[in-house]
């Protein structure tokens, strides 16, 4: 350990003597970690989106005009008696107008002629499990007061399957890029080992241990991985600050797709750890394969 500062200095000197090798390794890893980070953020965002839709009422039963409060209460009691319903909420025609006007407040053309007469009253129903929605559906369809039923399930399912596709493509791409990074580190460090054969031979002859010879190359790999992961995380943060508001404006109703800067700090730490690990593995393989000590 007392030699660590000298070994780090040796690694830095070797990097500075072959800056193009270092640049090649760093750029490939930077691209990898940018894409990895982007997929992590997309994944987090889609989970927030799915949770949001799941947390919303899963079934909305629109009531015929003139349905009295007694009928509404009867329906709500029947729903509660099934044991599968977690929550019901009655939305009157007046409340429906309020909600509609709030949602489209930026588009006066859509709201100017809307009155309580046009919009139906409704009962919003949530179940404990998505599987129980069909029971609720069957029950509601029997009710004369119910005019139409809207399912949130369709949105959630469409979103879930889209997320699954994105996630699978993401995992495939990430694995491919991580392997590319590993191989690039291996090749660059292998090249550096060949360039320093004379130095390695002299180190052996003057009594350097195997680890003393290997460690600067491992440090080199750790630096490639961690520095590029760090820079990639900063780029990702900057990109999010730049395009984040545009994305959020598309999902107006969803509060904070990527909430708090903490996620970027976790992402930075995670990427630096993964980067350093990839660099270490690449360097280890390179020293095992190309270094004879």
């Amino acid at each position: 350990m007392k030699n660590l500062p000298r070994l780090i200095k040796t690694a830095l000197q070797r990097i500075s003597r072959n800056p193009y090798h270092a640049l090649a390794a760093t750029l490939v890893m930077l691209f990898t970690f940018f894409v990895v980070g982007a997929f992590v953020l997309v994944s987090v965002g889609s989970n927030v989106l799915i949770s949001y839709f799941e947390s919303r009422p899963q079934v909305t039963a629109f009531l015929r005009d003139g349905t009295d409060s007694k009928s509404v209460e009867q329906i709500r009691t029947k729903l509660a008696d099934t044991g599968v319903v977690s929550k019901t909420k009655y939305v009157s025609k007046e409340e429906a107008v309020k909600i509609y006007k709030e949602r489209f407040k930026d588009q006066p053309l859509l709201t100017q002629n809307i009155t309580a007469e046009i919009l139906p009253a409704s009962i919003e129903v949530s179940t404990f499990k998505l599987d129980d929605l069909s029971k609720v559906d069957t029950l509601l369809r029997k009710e004369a007061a119910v005019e139409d039923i809207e399912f949130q399930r369709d949105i959630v399912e469409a979103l879930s399957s889209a997320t699954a596709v994105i996630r699978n493509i993401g995992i495939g791409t990430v694995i491919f890029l991580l392997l590319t990074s590993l191989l690039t580190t291996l090749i660059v460090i292998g090249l550096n080992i060949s360039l320093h054969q004379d130095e390695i031979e002299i180190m052996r002859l003057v009594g350097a241990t195997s680890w003393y010879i290997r460690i600067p190359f491992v440090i080199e790999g750790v630096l490639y991985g961690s520095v590029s992961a760090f820079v990639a995380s900063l780029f990702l943060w900057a990109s999010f600050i730049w395009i984040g508001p545009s994305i959020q404006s598309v999902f107006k109703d969803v509060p904070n797709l990527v909430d708090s800067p903490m996620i970027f700090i976790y992402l930075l730490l995670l990427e630096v750890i993964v980067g350093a690990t990839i660099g270490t593995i690449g360097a280890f393989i390179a020293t095992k394969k190309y270094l004879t000590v």
Partner: protein
Amino acid sequence: MIAFRDVSKNYNSHAALADISFEISPSEFIFLVGPSGAGKSTLLKLIIRDDIPSKGSIFVDGMDIATLRAHEVPHLRRKVGTVFQDFKLLPQRTVFENVSFPLEILGLDDEEIKKVVEETLSLVNMVEKGTNFPHEISGGEAQRTAIARAMVLRPEIILADEPTGNLDLGSAWEIMQLLNKLNSLGTTIVMATHNTDITGGLTHRKIEIQKGRLVGDSKEKGTKPKSVKKK
């Protein structure tokens, strides 16, 4: 200090060394003589465990080279300084830094390193050139730097493989004087050379190798290598 017992070294079917036996006592100065390709460098490589014998045993300061574990090899090499015909200096390091290299590996602090390196450079008359890079000094100076590097850990043995091979006669004699000086300070020197101009004028023990076989050892009853060869 060094003992070879029936040592052979084969590369595929080629015998680089065959049934070599001799012993070297502490503080001896040995010339390992013979033509190019005779096996001198192979013999030196075996002493520092850069290679292992195909047969026989080698003892260096009590250590059995053939059975030495990998992690023990660096300790052996710190006991045996090595000097080469092509100096093997690191071009991007100054004379001082080249000599300090083995001390850095040992993990000495900068102050200790400075003290020991200056003492060693003074021993080889290279203090003034400490800040020069290898390309800025002469061949003789480069070899003196290489000897300083071999000496800096104060090894008990120095192996010199054709240390005068790349030098003019004047520089070669300077190197010989330096090696003699180190020997007089108690260091065992084993110098491989085919230069009879150098060995002829000195009375040190000569071990002669030809085609991988030991053909003469001047220690044995004062026999001269050439006469042994004629047997």
